[in-house]
């Protein structure tokens, strides 16, 4: 059995260390294997965003060990974390977070640019990824404000896949979409998961858990069993 792709051991995140401490996450022990589809559920303030930010290496744990793809992140500096994000993690945001001045294709190219991929390769790969994400080719040169919400999220998914990361992190990927579009996006994501990509989705939409094989429930910063709600 190979080691887990994401591993948290006794991970605690405390905001405002000092008098008014907030334990956003308390002694979390989580292990996610390559190819898993995990949903993280919990009400707002349960710590699910904190967990996502930690796994995404956007934030560091206060205590405990976090391993991504076997690498202990506590020893890494800012640029080290950047490299982990670039090579291992694809982000999908609720707000899509596309860069408004760039076309769909250019948005997909951004992570490849920072990975120093040559121009020709970037062009070709970005078009392939847009096709993979089911965006019609004619929209490749459209700016985000010329695209619908569903189309924007498809561009964002293509961008997340740019550097072929083993992990996809999605924060409420369907939160800003109508239910039909949301369903299509979830179908796309689970197809990617079937292809071998580890998928971690934060949501409070119960329907999404139907697609996943594991659900992690959080309450007041603690990981709890299936019935804690």
């Amino acid at each position: 059995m190979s080691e887990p792709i994401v591993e948290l051991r006794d991970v605690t995140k405390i905001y405002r260390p000092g008098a008014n401490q907030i334990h956003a996450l308390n002694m979390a022990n989580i292990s996610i294997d390559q190819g898993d589809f995990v949903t993280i559920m919990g009400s707002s303030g349960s710590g699910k965003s904190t967990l996502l930010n930690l796994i995404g290496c956007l934030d560091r744990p206060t205590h405990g060990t976090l391993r991504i793809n076997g690498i202990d992140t506590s020893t890494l500096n800012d640029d080290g974390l950047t490299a982990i994000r670039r090579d291992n993690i694809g982000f999908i945001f609720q707000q899509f977070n596309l860069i408004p001045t760039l076309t769909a294709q250019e948005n997909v190219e951004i992570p490849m640019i920072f990975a120093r991929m040559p121009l020709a390769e970037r062009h070709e790969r970005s078009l392939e990824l847009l096709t993979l994400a089911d965006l019609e080719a004619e929209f490749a040169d459209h700016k985000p404000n010329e695209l619908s919400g569903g189309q924007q999220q498809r561009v964002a998914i293509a961008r997340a896949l740019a550097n072929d990361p083993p992990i996809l992190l999605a924060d409420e990927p369907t939160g800003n979409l109508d239910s039909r579009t949301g369903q299509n996006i979830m179908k796309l994501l689970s197809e990617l998961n079937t292809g071998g990509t580890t998928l971690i989705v934060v949501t409070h939409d119960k329907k999404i858990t139907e697609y996943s094989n594991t659900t992690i429930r959080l309450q007041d910063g603690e990981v709890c069993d299936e019935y804690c709600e």
Partner: protein
Amino acid sequence: MNIVNELQSNMYVQLARRNLTRQTVRTLLAAIGIIIGVIAISSMGILGNSLKLSVSDSIGDIGDTLIVGPAPGEDVITEKQVEQMRKVSGIELIIPVLQSGDKIDYRGGSTFGSTYSLEKEDLQELVEIEHGRFFRPGSTDCVVGSQIATSLELGVGSKIEISDSRMRVVGILKERGLGFDISTDTGVFMSSQMYEKLYPDEDDGYDSIIITVTELDKINEVKTSIEERLNKREEVVNVFAMNTITEGIDEVFRSLSLFLMGIGSISLLVAGVSILNVMLMSTMERTKEIGVMKAVGASRNDILWMFLLEALFLGVGASLIGGVLSFGGGFLVNYLILDDVSYLLAPTNLLYISAGIVFGIITSLIGGMYPAWKASQMRPLDALRHE
């Protein structure tokens, strides 16, 4: 070709270009600031430099000349002293000069000028004839400077009158400009016999001695040995080296140019602050975008370079435009202040334009540094949360 392709496909370049064009008006205003700054610096530099060029042109090439005059308390330089000077090595020419000033009349008109007695051979070394010829030794003929010829409307063959003595103008000299040895343009030159006839009461001896040296480097050496030889017991002559004048003029105008450029650089400073402002606003507006870029793998250096390159593009573009327009600015100040634009294209002026361009680029980069650094230091999570 490869470098061009490389540059075009460089993503920093692409991003910088795109970001500059997203707020066209703001970019344009910041660019105008730099353009004005570069024009101001270059034009002021050109003005100072043109002033210097026009003055040194009118002074002429006098650097290798020494002028020996009687020390205070002495009336003249004696023939014996001249003989002593001849023994100094490194001297090319020794030209004894008798000089006075007088009123010159011609057909009812009159002007004042300097009267000189120089040997014909010596005079030929110092001046050039424009019309006519030099006088013969012992004759009552004379040659006159261009300014006297113009103001009295003299031609070759005109008969002028000085102190009731009439003499014939046989030559008119080429204009030479301001000089410290002899005033060529306002001078009347005649033989020693004629000069003696005009001023019979003068003491024996010369008013000044013009000495040129064989090599410019030796000028101070020659000056010292003349002083040692002649002023052994008491000071009887003053030796004045012309290169100290030209050096002094150079120094004064270099300072003037720097001062003028300093005034011009104030506007560049203001432009730098406006770049700082524009870039800082741009980083604030793009906080979220910076967060996204960091999330998908942009390192601190990536972000730093992205913004610095924007500042650099702005700086290079605006400074080059400013450099081109500086020719116009230089033309204008030279026309308005010097009333002479012939020095505009002098090679040294191109130097001042280049300096303006370089300063413009440096200012832009400095203005862009803090915003770029600030953007690179943003924490991705804070930046992503920013609305």
